Structures are given as C-alpha cells and as structure tokens.
C-alpha cells in the first residue's frame, strides 16, 4: 500500500532528539513526519481543524454565560435525577461520562489487537466500543427528552437565561453527531476487520485502494478525540 512507511524495514533512522530532531524532520526529504502514513497525518490535521470548531462553540457559550444579565440555571439541579427516592445531582451525566471514557479503553485494546492481526478480538472490541458509543447517544436522547418535557427549548427555559437551552442543544447536539458518526465509522471498519479485508488486501469499493490494519488506529484517534472533547464539555458546561 502506498502509505506504507518504507523506512520501517530499512535501516533505523538515527535522529536527533528534541528541537533539533523536529527541525531535522521538517527540513528533510519527502516527508515532514517520518513513518507517519498519509491517513494518520490527515486525521491529525482534521482533528486540529475540528478542535477549532469545538473551541469556537465553547467560547461562544462562555461569552453568552458570562454576559447574561438573567440568572443562569444551575446545571447540578437541572441534570439531577431522582433514583429510588434519592435526589442525586448530575448522576446521568456522570454515568454517560464513565461510559464514554470506558469506550476509549476498549478502543485502545482494539488498536492493540489490530496490530497483532487478531481479527476476531479487534472486531469484537470495536463493536463493544460502538455499543458504548450508542449507549452514550441513547442516554443523551433520554436527557434531551427529559429536558424537553420539563419545558426547555432552544429559545427558552423555565429557569433563566434562554442561552442555556440554546447552548445545551447546540453543543451536545454537535458532539452527539460526532459520536454517532464515530459509531457508524466503527461498525463499518469492524465489518471490514471481521471479513478479513485487511489480511487479503481487498480493495475499497469507492477508492479501489487496499486497506490496512492501521485504519483501526485512525478510527481510534477520532474516537479518543470525541472523548476528549466531551471532557471539556463536561467541565465547562456541567461542572461550571
């Protein structure tokens, strides 16, 4: 495959450490990132761009929250649940966060087994990750339903600043879309792993390129990123 790093099986590249090493890589021939495939480089750069999108969303939300003249609803109360007669603040969000972070663990294991070419374990772990992701989106749907039943709308809510509902639906919606795309991505790649596409170097339907087990890691990069973004949303929206 074109993206294979040929120097992997050449002589080990002796490279300077630290800044000198970075400068040497960037001023070197053919590739700025040595032994990084095209797909992986592209995913990293995409994630950098996506970081700017989420930063803009979060900064806009913070601006709205800091400049509002009406009280901001207290997230601990809004997102509390009554379970067995006990009033537990933020419990649903805590569970959702736990699930999403666990899914990062199973994803990392899938990447590991992918490089060991363990088809079954890789595909299974990817499907477990996808299941965690789907659970997360399901719980988010439950949360949305609950808030909508309580009268929260993008343009108003019973407790205070209208921007609370607007920001909530927009940011969690945008993040939830990312998780959903990730789940679809995971299932599609898991299917290819399961079928053994990367062992027989079957060509892609659209691109006619041979696939690679590295795609599992690239999927993982995206998944960990979506996870990391959630940590920031959790900190800035729910805990603030």
């Amino acid at each position, binding site marked *: 495959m074109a993206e294979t790093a040929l*120097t992997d099986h050449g002589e080990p590249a002796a490279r300077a450490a630290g800044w000198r090493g970075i400068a040497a890589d960037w001023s070197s021939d053919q*590739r700025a990132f040595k032994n990084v495939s095209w797909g992986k480089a592209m995913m990293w750069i995409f994630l950098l761009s996506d970081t700017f999108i989420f930063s803009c969303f979060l900064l*806009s939300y913070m601006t709205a929250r800091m400049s509002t003249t009406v009280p901001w609803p207290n997230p601990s109360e809004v997102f509390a649940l009554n379970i067995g007669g006990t009033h537990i603040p933020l419990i649903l969000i805590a569970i959702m966060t736990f699930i999403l972070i666990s899914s990062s663990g199973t994803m990392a294991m899938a990447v590991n087994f992918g490089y060991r070419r363990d088809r079954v374990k890789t595909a299974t772990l990817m499907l477990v990750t996808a299941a965690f992701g789907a659970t997360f989106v399901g719980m988010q749907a439950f949360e949305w339903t609950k808030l909508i039943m309580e009268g929260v709308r993008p343009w108003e809510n019973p407790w205070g600043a209208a921007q609370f509902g607007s920001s909530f639906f927009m940011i969690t919606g945008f993040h939830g879309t990312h998780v959903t795309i990730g789940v679809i991505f995971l299932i599609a790649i898991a299917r290819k792993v399961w079928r053994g596409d990367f062992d027989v170097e079957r060509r892609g339907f659209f691109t006619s390129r041979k696939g690679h087990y590295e795609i599992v890691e690239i999927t993982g990069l995206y998944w960990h990123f979506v996870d990391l973004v959630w940590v920031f949303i959790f900190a800035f929206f729910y805990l603030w």
Partner: protein
Amino acid sequence: MVDVPYEATVDVPPAEVADVELYHPKSWWTQYVFSQDAKVIAIQYSLTATAIGLVALVLSWLMRLQLGFPGTFSFIDANQYLQFITMHGMIMVIYLLTALFLGGFGNYLIPLMVGARDMVFPYVNMLSYWVYLLAVIVLASAFFVPGGPTGAGWTLYPPQAILSGTPGQDWGIILMLSSLILFIIGFTMGGLNYVVTVLQARTRGMTLMRLPLTVWGIFTATVMALLAFPALFVASVMMLFDRVLGTSFFMPALVEMGQQMKYGGGSPILFQHLFWFFGHPEVYIVALPAFGIVSDLISTHARKNIFGYRMMVWAIVAIGALSFIVWAHHMYVSGMHPHFGFFFATTTLIIAIPTAIKVYNWVLTLWRGDIHLTVPMLFALGFIITFVNGGLTGLFLGNVVVDVPLSDTMFVVAHFHMVMGVAPIMVVLGAIYHWYPKVTGRMLNEALGKLHFWVTFLGAYLIFFPMHYLGLLGVPRRYHDIGEAAFLTPSVHTLNAFMSVVALIVGLAQILFLFNLVWSLFKGKASGGNPWRATTLEWQTPETPPGHGNWGKELPVVYRWAYDYSVPGAPEDFIPQNQPPARRTAQGAAT
C-alpha cells in the same frame, strides 16, 4: 548565489514514499465527470468558480450603473442594490477567489510541483469538488426564491441580517448560511488533501526548502483556511439557529415595527469576533497563494533567481501566523474596549514588516533581471503596483484614530478592492496566462492578452483610485443613492459616472479574455512542454497536458531549488529542478 545546498545530495536519497496505486477510470463518466484526478478536479473547480464569478461581475456592473447614474435605472431599487453588494462580495471572496486559488491552482499545481502522482486521497478530493458545486448551487438558488438573496452585506452582521427590514430575510439568509456551511465542509475535504500532499508525498529530493513559492503560498493558505473556517462555520450555525429556531445567540432584545421581538440577551459583537476571526485570515488565504504565484512568475519571466528565498518562505509563514491575531482591526467602531484597539492596531502594523520584505524581494528580483514583458509578467508587475497601493492605504485603516473617520466610507471599499480584489485577480489572470499552455498544450493569444492586461490594469486603477478621494470626502459605502448633501462636491457625481463607464469597459475586457480562453483552446499556437523555459517540475512532465499519474513510469528526482535561472557557466539560462548536477569542476562552478 544559491542558498540551497544541492551539491551535497548528488546521491539520490532512497524513496520513503512508495509509488501510489492510482484509481484507473473505467468509463467516460469516471474519467471526466466523477474524476478522481486532481487535474480534472482543478479544471472543474476553476470552471465553476469562473461561472459564479461571472454572476458577481454582472452584479458589479449593476451596482456601478446605479451609483454612476442614480435614478436612471428603475429596475434597481434599494433592496436589490443591497442584495447585489452582498452577493458580489461573498461570491468574489469565497466562491471565486478562495475556490480558484486553493481548489483550482492548488489541485493542479501541488501534485505536479512536488512531484506526486496525485493528491493523497483522490476520492475525498473528488467529494470536495461536488460539495463545493452543491454550495454554489445553493448560493445561486437564492436569486430564484421569494424575497431573493440576502441583502445583509457580505459581513452578514446580526441583528440586521435576520430582521425583516433586510431584503432576503425569508429565504436568502437561510440559503446563504447553508451554502457557507456546505462550502466549509467541501473545502475541508480538499484542504486536508493539499496539506498532507505537501507534507507527506513529495518526490525524492524535494525538501520543503526546495518547494516553489507557489506551493508554499497555497500550502500556508490552506493551513490557515483549515483553522479559520471553523469560526465561520460556528457563526453560520449559530445564526442559522437564531433565524430558524428563534435562539438568541447574536440577537439582543429588540423592538421591530413597534413589536417587542422574542429575542433577548444575545451578543451581536460575538458574531463580529467570530466572523473576523475567519474574515481576516481569509484576506491572507486569498493573498498568500497570490504572493507565492507572483514570486514564481517574476522569477521565471525575469530569468533571475528569486531574491531571498528563505526570507520569502518565512515571510509567508509569519504573515499566516500574524493574521490570526489582528482580526479586531475590522471592529474599531464596534464599541469594544479601546485597549483592544491599541493591541490590534499594533499587531496589524507588525504585519507590514514581512509584507514589505516580500515586496522588496520582488523588486530586487526584477533588479537587473532579463525582464521579458510577457503577459504573465505584465500581470505580475500590475500586481506589485496595486498591492503596494492597497497596502499603503491599509496603514491608514490599521490605525484606530485614522480609521474611525474613514470607517464605512468609500475609502474602505477602495482599499480592500485594491489589496484583495484587484491585486489577487491580477495574479489569477497572470497565472492563467502562465499555466494555460501546460493545461491545454496551446498558448493563449498574446495580442489579445496584452489588450486584456492594459484595459484591466488601467481600468481597475481608474475605478479604484478616484474612489479613495470619494471616501476622504466622506461618501459612505453601501448607499443605494447618496443624493445631494453639502459635503458632496459636483466632482463626486462626475467621478461616480466616470468610474461606472470604466467598470463596464473593464468587465468587457474580461469577456474578451474568456473568448481568448476558448479560441486559443482550438486555434492557439502549440506550446510544447516548457514554453517559458521554466525550472519547476510541472514543466518537465513527459506529456503536455500531463497524463493520468503525471510522470509516466518513473517519478522525477529533484536535485536543486526551483530558481536556477541564468546560472553563470550553465549552457542554458535555466536548469530544471530534476536535472542532475554535473561533475564538480575545480572551483565549484558546478551546475
């Protein structure tokens, strides 16, 4: 003096990137329509951008007719005038210039100039074009919906952009925002390709510091676009919600037609920050590819190596980085804290340093060069003049105290048309004259080209130079009819009429240029592979126009930088990048 040490790499380095397996088209459809070949995608991008650009050209005619002869054309009312300025601005900045420089020139030139067979992910690259086409169709469809396109001005400032006093409030604004979101999605798919191709798919010997400046300009602009467009994306999504769902991200409490609106608590200034965090880098997203291309045009047609190559590269990178911390100089009159004005004025003026380095280096490249006044060279020279002119008025507008009285006058319009309208368009035209032979195998007609240049260059000057004077008198921008006022001297009206007549002539010259493009495709004289005797890799392809995969069997190997023109002792006045060095003579006069 060559500051890239090519002698050290006489031995060819091992290939780190294996040759790509290309997608081989199986039918006419996959070869010419749903093509994954970057060269075909580039032509598709260019043709679409030109088509929508023609719409913007016609809109500018209509605006000029109204301004030059107010009251004469009953079919242009105030609402339509606002719709024309909005669509003209948005099309020119985003759908024409950004798409043409990055999607058009980027797709065509990056793989050829870095010695790759194609972009790294051709399928994603193809999707990029089709999403762009969809964005253009959504944008253009605004002309046919009830209420017409939005008239909010290209900056789309809320709250007015979504209030009922603004034309296009029904559908226009929704289509505009949707189109922008689509454009950004499409651009991201292409942009990731351009960046990864430059970083990871260069041919043997092509280090970053041997890249032609064209690639440096397009590459840096693409990185900037990937980081700046997110802000516009977020702003568009939020304003779309304000308009469609009734959220109040940007909408303060308002009374409209005596009615208290349901909005409240939003911040219009937040939109301005988001918009200009995109909008200012956007200026350089358009300018940096122009800087890069013009460097190559000047060097090639003056038969001289570019002066200070490393400084040119670092200036491009520095301008790209600095442009992210100057955005609020567009907001001096928005009521933000004066300390911000101080900060942003300082950063704005700092950008003048790397920009001035570039201008000096272009002039020093010309100095004692063997200047061939070919059509591309004429356009390159035209660029330097209009760009310096626009840059100098930028010093006026970058300073808070000078900007405040000039804000929202024709002076601003004259400034940005000079610096990011006329100047990059000069480069686009020059670049088309320069690379047309590579794309088609035929030369553009030179007589028509020279006529086109002189009419465009002198005409653009005659339009925009007097406009500065109108602005200094206080003529406001975005007014359908300035009417009569004490500060408006009779010469204002005379000049307005004069500028309108010239604008019609300049527009006709562009039609002449389009005719030249089509005519030369069939009747132009055959160009051969390297008509300009240029050094860069795209002129060294085995076939012209380059075939699928660009390079035939073997990828080229690069031994030197892109600017070996008029090297003393060399048999020709140019040495292609892929020509191996001769054995060194005693005192290092190797070629």
